[in-house]
């Protein structure tokens, strides 16, 4: 009987081992997409695969990665943030104006905006509101505020920010170091710490969390505040690169950030997200949308289409690999 049980459990664990392998494979898919895009770039323009090339190609991917992380926090609580793009734009405008001219006021405004994010989380939880509507409304609010702060493009990034964003470390380009840091720090915070478990659990099974005595109000506030925090960092990083601001500068980030989370293996519900995947997803999107496209020399009419086709090919290649799943 004991031998039989043992044999039995071995078989069962091998069945689950295959589930774990499938999971691992799925976890590697984002990296695979990135590798695919990098290979294509190396083939089209070998010059791009260099210290200088990576610095240029990837530095604008950093704010996208940060915005994607912000979106990922919201998605891991089963919500969606349609305002992250205009929020990044708003932060950019504040960074290029107040933060430079009156640093204390600037810091206060940015902290206050993180506070507003936290309040939104509380509002959404307490009134049981659909986050997609609330954040849709907020996307107008942030854009309106951005235009009021900066009625026409301009402003200037604070010098310290410019210095950070143009930092040139030896051997490894800054954007790669930054991406690694972002991925690893958030991975540690969300996937490894004991409160990170609670945050993800609030997306996985909120009722179970409540039954275990946790406050869902608090988890929602924390997730939204983290989204606000990373949105602020994203906006500042963006302005550090572009050097000056524009009220419409972040508008495209909302869709990019959602797509980055999904490309990185996240799911809209169930608290299934991956910080490292999200960063890789953001890098892939950034590379596929611009460098790859620029290097391909497509006729102007069809350049936009090529952008879509690249996305489709990158994702379809994943399917060939994970065909047997599901």
């Amino acid at each position, binding site marked *: 009987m004991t031998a039989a049980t043992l044999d039995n459990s071995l078989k069962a664990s091998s069945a689950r081992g295959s589930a774990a392998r499938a999971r691992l494979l799925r976890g590697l898919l984002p990296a695979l997409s990135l590798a695919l895009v990098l290979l294509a770039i190396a083939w089209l323009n070998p010059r791009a695969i260099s210290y200088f090339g990576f610095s240029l190609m990837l530095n604008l991917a950093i704010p996208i990665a940060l915005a994607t992380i912000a979106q990922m926090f919201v998605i891991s609580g089963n919500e969606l943030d349609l305002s992250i793009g205009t929020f990044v734009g708003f932060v950019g405008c504040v960074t290029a104006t107040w933060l430079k001219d009156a640093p204390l006021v600037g810091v206060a405004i940015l902290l206050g905006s993180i506070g507003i994010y936290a309040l939104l989380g509380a509002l959404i939880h307490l009134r049981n509101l659909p986050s997609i509507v609330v954040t849709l409304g907020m996307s107008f609010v942030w854009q309106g505020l951005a235009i009021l702060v900066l009625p026409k493009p301009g*402003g200037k990034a604070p010098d310290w920010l410019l210095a950070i964003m143009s930092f040139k470390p030896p051997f490894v380009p800054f954007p790669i170091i930054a991406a690694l840091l972002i991925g690893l720090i958030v991975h540690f915070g969300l996937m490894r710490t004991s409160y990170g478990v609670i945050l993800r659990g609030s997306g996985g099974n909120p009722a179970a969390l409540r039954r275990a005595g946790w406050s869902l109000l608090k988890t929602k506030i924390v997730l939204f505040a983290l989204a606000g925090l990373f949105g602020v960092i994203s906006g500042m990083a963006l302005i550090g690169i572009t050097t000056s601001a524009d009220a419409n*500068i972040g508008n495209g980030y909302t869709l990019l950030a959602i797509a980055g989370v999904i490309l990185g293996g996240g799911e809209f519900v169930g608290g299934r997200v991956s910080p490292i995947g999200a960063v890789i997803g953001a890098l892939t999107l950034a590379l596929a949308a611009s460098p790859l496209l620029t290097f391909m020399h497509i006729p102007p009419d069809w350049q936009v289409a090529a*952008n879509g086709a690249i996305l489709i090919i990158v994702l379809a290649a994943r399917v060939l690999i994970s065909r047997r799943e599901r």
Partner: protein
Amino acid sequence: TSGKKIAFSNNYAGNSWRQAMLDSYGIVTKKAVDDKVVAAADVFTTADKEVPTQAAQVQNLILQGYDAIVINAASPDALNGAIKQACDAGIVVVSFDGIVTEPCAYRVVVDFKDMGKQEVEQMAKFQPKGGNLLEIRGLAGTSIDDAIHAGILEGVAAHPEFKIVGSVTGDWDQTTAQKAVATILPSLPDVVGIVDQGGDGYGAAQAFAAANKPRPTIIMGNRQDELKWWKEQKEKDGYKTWSASIAPGVSTLAFWVAQQVLDGRKDIPHDLLVPYLAFTQDDFEAALPKIKEGGVATHEYTQEEAIAAIKANIK
């Protein structure tokens, strides 16, 4: 400059003005390449009027090894980081329409503020008694919108008989403009004229017709449908107005400026002022047949015309 490569960075291709701009650019540069004036003149368009996307595009053009970049920028300031990197890499940058403020770049500038002011001056001719005006503005938060608006305000200040009683945002887009006008019309007192930024005159006319309101004097923006509508109205009852816009063919002037700089000319000023293209009651009908259906009035520069235009700017 027969070995030089010039790239064109564009951030949007979805409206008739941009299409005309690309057409003009294509015609002129194809000939320049065929004549071996330059080695290549490639066009790069991004999808979405996004600043970060265009900044990334400029950076990738640097990596591609172009000698010059002609750019219609999504933002005058926010691309400065990327433009500076291009200059540092020894690349000549020439901006037009959507210009960039980075000092190392060249700017082919249209005096939008003057254009706004002229609109009111012209309006004063057609509506000497003055009256209420409706303003249709462009894309909020952009410098061109800001400049034309400032010009219009200046014009109204100089003509106290006019009063702006309503202002809507049309995003330089006929559909948005028509929708915005349609929503404000029911509550608007009678207006004698509409001052706008180009591309929205026809939509405004449709909105007035749909609401059965009397047709005001609408400043036009050189689109074929606008001029055609103007012609119809003129034939019906002698309707008078004025039309102005930046010519899409300015892209070709920017191209020639880049070529001239690459050719080693050191005397070209970084800011080049070119006139906007305007039509009056007398000359618009002559221009109309030359604009293709659904297109925009334009003017393509030859190398000689470009050199002349540059010379006009050297004091």
